[in-house]
């Protein structure tokens, strides 16, 4: 597609439930990133996929968070047993080479609210 597509755009879930967030990167972009943006704060790195290499999971805040990517296409971020502190906007981005110096293209994000 023309841009990075994320779904759903909004998700309200009850505490303790699992949620799955989806990201469709720009076709041909080998690198894909997930970031979290809490209200009034900057972007927090979660996970990075580059081609067929093992993902960099160093930013995942707990083992309740996991992510997968199929080849160089769709990625899903799963949060198990959601907590209220998981409420945030989850942003996906992609780039051509994975070299961060060239900038990312972001999707519009998924706003997750845990009640």
């Amino acid at each position, binding site marked *: 597609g023309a841009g990075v597509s994320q779904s759903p755009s909004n998700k309200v879930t009850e505490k303790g439930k699992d949620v799955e967030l989806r990201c469709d990167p720009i076709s041909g972009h080998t690198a894909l990133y997930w970031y979290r943006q809490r209200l009034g704060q900057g972007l927090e790195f979660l996970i990075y996929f580059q081609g067929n290499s093992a993902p960099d999971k160093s930013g995942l805040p707990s083992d309740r968070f996991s992510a997968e990517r199929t080849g160089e296409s769709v990625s899903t971020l799963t949060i198990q047993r959601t907590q209220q502190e998981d409420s945030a906007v989850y942003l996906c981005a992609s780039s051509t080479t994975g070299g*961060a*110096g060239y900038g990312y293209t972001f999707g519009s994000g998924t706003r997750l609210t845990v009640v």
Partner: protein
Amino acid sequence: TQLLEQSPQFLSIQEGENLTVYCNSSSVFSSLQWYRQEPGEGPVLLVTVVTGGEVKKLKRLTFQFGDARKDSSLHITAAQPGDTGLYLCAGPRGGYGKLTFGQGTILTVHP
């Protein structure tokens, strides 16, 4: 502690005024980027600066990278309501492909 410190955090000005947003670090960066984010949208890349002392212009926006590559500034001339948004600086850090972001500057331009 943020690796990239932005100031001010909030800026509220009238249409036509000039403003400058700063992004500072004690660390050297190979490049720095500026993004603008509007409500309900993801950040959009405005510019990447890669050479110490570099100045780039994008219409009414002027971006500068410090000589020591530890800081950057964004200057807007004759601000317009359409400039309203969250401005983020970011730089590569923590491994190949990863960006670290400043906490952002929320700019509101009143008509």
